[in-house]
């Protein structure tokens, strides 16, 4: 067995980088800090590739099943004799896959940013934050302990917050960062309570132990969590659902998705890293991590399925109407994550039943490449035109060939056109859905058509449509920006060809999958249809889109306005939370609670004013009171009190 202790370096290198850059970056390193960040991440990336090699090909497998390897584990905070937060590193197929994805995409983004963020005043800070994020994300995926996940969960949240708010003097960026944090925080509340519930019944926070106990039908823990119920729902379902809420928040599932489009206020490479490839799939990862437990609770999985499917559809519809290219990408991300979610939801544990799980992970893997590619491409575009809006673009294919081609590849990949990566993963998802739930299959199929449509709508609007007349065309940008695009494009092409099911499955054993060509006709045709429709509408400048929009009428408007979810939120927060809870609370505190204290004071003073007549200054009154006092005392102590 190899000693995997070196894996700890993978997250720790970015952490060190964060500390160094955070403390001294602004003064000591300045522009040099990009190199520092990239360099350290390169080391991490190499290490994680090495780890992957070691794990998958050398010694991860025992008896044909990939093992959970605890590389290291330290007790970090002991709550009670058997419940503790441990800091550790766990290697299993998904975590190894994730560290590869995270380090690799992050490296690409780091490289891309060298050009993209050049000349920024807070260049060092940017890289510090990126490193922080990478550290947190790596920590998250390597966690051995559910609470460790929660901690890194929060940390990725805050790095996302910091990066979205990177342009801190832009009020919209500040607002977006705030929104992102608060919405995910709200979801995390569910996660936290879910953890409390699971941990209380499982009497552990350790993931392996937890899974072991809650899947063993004989264990006392299992009995206690399944027999107890609240509002007719078993405690286990409650716990898992609450944990899923946490995941849904991070992964922008309906109705907690509202922060994701706004999060595009951050620098585009950041969006590529965090809001496309890595952080937003943390929810999927979370469910996958606890999948053995989820798989024994059908109710929780159903929730995952329907939420995922609905989000996929909803996001796809909205994406068709948006004009901000990053927002389109954001909704597309949401939609794709929806795919991953429902794919998990329709899956079961082990063997053939675990196809959905495998498919979900596969899609996560491929999606990371093409979606980050799309974002980086969009970044390059924005870098050139200094705008996010489609209306300001068009005909850019001549100015930026590399971007154009890579973007096209990514679009094809996401649309599920063979032989690009997306085709393979999506195919597996559809198969899994078809096998278990026809309704979901229908939705998925329809969504995949929509995906092709809006992606090519995007593609044509940027690179074709009208002929552009850029005067200040300064080209595509530095080579540091181009190289990542090329690398990612290559990945987007070949990633799907990996024999993924050999490595990552629900139970660790290899799974035989095969592409059923007949089955894949429908989705590919639908995708091609979508592409053709998009080409028809957007390849050249015309008024067809408006006509279509007018024909759709209210539906279009609703979709364009993102189905008013934001408005509902604003209503709830502003009107209900602020006006009906916050304001009264503040008012009560000021006037009633504090008023009570002040009242005591003023009553005392009033009484004092009231009885001042006692001290009239007249000596005869004094004597009279004196005598009254005596009579009173006599009355009390001679007659009354005996």
């Amino acid at each position, binding site marked *: 067995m190899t000693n995997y202790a070196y894996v700890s370096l993978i997250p720790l290198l970015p952490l060190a980088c964060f500390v160094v850059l955070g403390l001294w970056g602004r003064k000591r390193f300045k522009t040099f800090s990009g190199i520092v960040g990239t360099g350290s991440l390169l080391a991490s990336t190499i290490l994680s590739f090495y780890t992957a090699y070691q794990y998958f090909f050398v010694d991860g497998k025992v008896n044909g099943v990939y093992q959970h390897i605890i590389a290291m584990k330290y007790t970090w905070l002991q709550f009670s004799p058997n419940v503790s937060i441990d800091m550790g590193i766990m290697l299993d197929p998904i975590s190894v896959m994730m560290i590869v994805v995270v380090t690799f995409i992050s490296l690409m983004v780091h490289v891309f940013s060298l050009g993209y963020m050049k000349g920024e005043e807070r260049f060092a800070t940017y890289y510090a934050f990126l490193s922080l994020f990478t550290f947190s994300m790596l920590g998250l995926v390597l966690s051995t302990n559910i609470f460790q996940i929660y901690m890194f969960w929060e940390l990725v949240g805050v790095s996302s917050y910091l990066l979205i708010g990177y342009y801190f003097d832009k009020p919209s960026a500040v607002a977006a960062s705030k929104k992102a944090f608060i919405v995910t925080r709200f979801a995390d509340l569910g996660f936290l309570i879910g953890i409390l519930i699971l941990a209380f019944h499982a009497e552990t926070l350790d993931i392996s132990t937890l899974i072991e106990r809650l899947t063993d039908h004989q264990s006392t823990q299992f009995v206690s969590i399944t027999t107890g119920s609240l509002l007719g729902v078993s405690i286990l379902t409650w716990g898992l659902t609450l944990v899923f809420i946490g995941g849904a928040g991070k992964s922008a599932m309906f109705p907690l998705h509202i922060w994701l489009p706004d999060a595009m206020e951050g620098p585009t490479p950041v969006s590529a890293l965090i809001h496309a490839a890595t952080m937003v799939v943390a929810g999927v990862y979370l469910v996958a991590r606890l999948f053995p437990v989820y798989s024994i609770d059908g109710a929780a999985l159903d929730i995952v399925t329907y939420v995922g499917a609905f989000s996929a559809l909803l996001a796809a519809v909205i994406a068709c109407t948006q004009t901000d290219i990053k927002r389109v990408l954001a909704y597309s991300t949401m939609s794709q994550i929806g795919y991953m979610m429902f794919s998990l939801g329709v899956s079961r544990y082990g063997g053939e039943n675990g196809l959905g799980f495998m498919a979900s992970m596969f899609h996560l893997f491929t999606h990371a490449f093409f979606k980050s590619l799309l974002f980086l491409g969009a970044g390059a575009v924005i870098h050139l035109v200094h705008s996010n809006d489609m209306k300001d673009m068009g005909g850019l294919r001549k100015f930026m060939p590399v971007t154009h081609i890579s973007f096209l590849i990514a679009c094809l990949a996401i649309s599920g056109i063979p032989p690009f990566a997306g085709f393979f993963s999506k195919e597996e998802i559809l198969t899994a859905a078809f096998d278990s739930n026809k309704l979901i299959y229908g939705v998925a199929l329809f969504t995949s058509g929509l995906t092709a449509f809006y992606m090519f709508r995007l593609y044509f609007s940027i690179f074709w449509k009208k002929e552009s007349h850029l005067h200040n065309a300064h080209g595509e940008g530095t080579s540091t920006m181009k190289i990542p695009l090329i690398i990612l494009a290559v990945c987007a092409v070949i990633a799907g060809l990996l024999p993924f099911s050999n490595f990552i499955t629900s139970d660790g054993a290899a799974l035989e999958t095969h592409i059923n060509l007949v089955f894949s006709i429908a989705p590919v045709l639908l995708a091609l249809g979508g592409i053709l429709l998009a080409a028809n509408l957007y390849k050249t400048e015309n008024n067809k889109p408006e006509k279509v929009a007018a024909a759709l009428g209210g539906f279009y408007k609703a979709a364009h306005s993102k189905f008013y979810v934001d408005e509902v939120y604003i209503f709830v927060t502003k009107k209900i939370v602020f006006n009906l809870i916050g304001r009264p609370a503040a008012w009560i505190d000021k006037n009633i609670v504090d008023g009570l204290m002040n009242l005591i004071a003023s009553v005392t003073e009033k009484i004092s004013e009231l009885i001042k007549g006692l001290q009239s200054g007249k000596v*005869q009154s004094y004597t*009279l009171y004196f*005598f*009254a006092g005596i*009579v009173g005392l006599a*009355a009390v102590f*001679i007659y009354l009190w005996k």
Partner: protein
Amino acid sequence: MTASQIIFYILSAFILGSGILAVTTRKIFRSAIWLLFSLIGIAGLYFWLQVEFIAAIQIVVYVGGIVVLIIFSIFLTQKSGSEMPKASATRKGFAVAAVLIGFALVWQLISHHSFKQTSTTTLDVDVANIGSQLLSTTDHGYILPFEVVSILLLAAMIGCIVIAMKKTEAV
């Protein structure tokens, strides 16, 4: 009813009557005179009780001293013959109530109390006896109180002088 009883009741009536007049009459000088009568009545009561020495002191100190002092001070501070201002009705009402309640209370207590006589041997209350006891340091001697009172009188004297002395000599 024996003569002694009659004398007692007459004396009592006299004391109380003139006492009431002393505190109610509006003319200050008359008030002082009524007080004088009341005090003399009390002296009479002491005679009746056969404590002649106290009766004598009563006449000497009160009638001869205090009342005279009061009358002098009235002359100093008051135009004679003018009527004194009346107390407010409320004050009077409260005073009457307080006094009546107080009296009722005390009288109730006294009349229900059985006083116990502890000894029947009577001691001579003649002047010589009192005088020798007053200055005796041994049994039943009152030399210590006597000295204390003398300090008190000294102090009172000093106090009076300082306070009442005219401030004309101020330089």
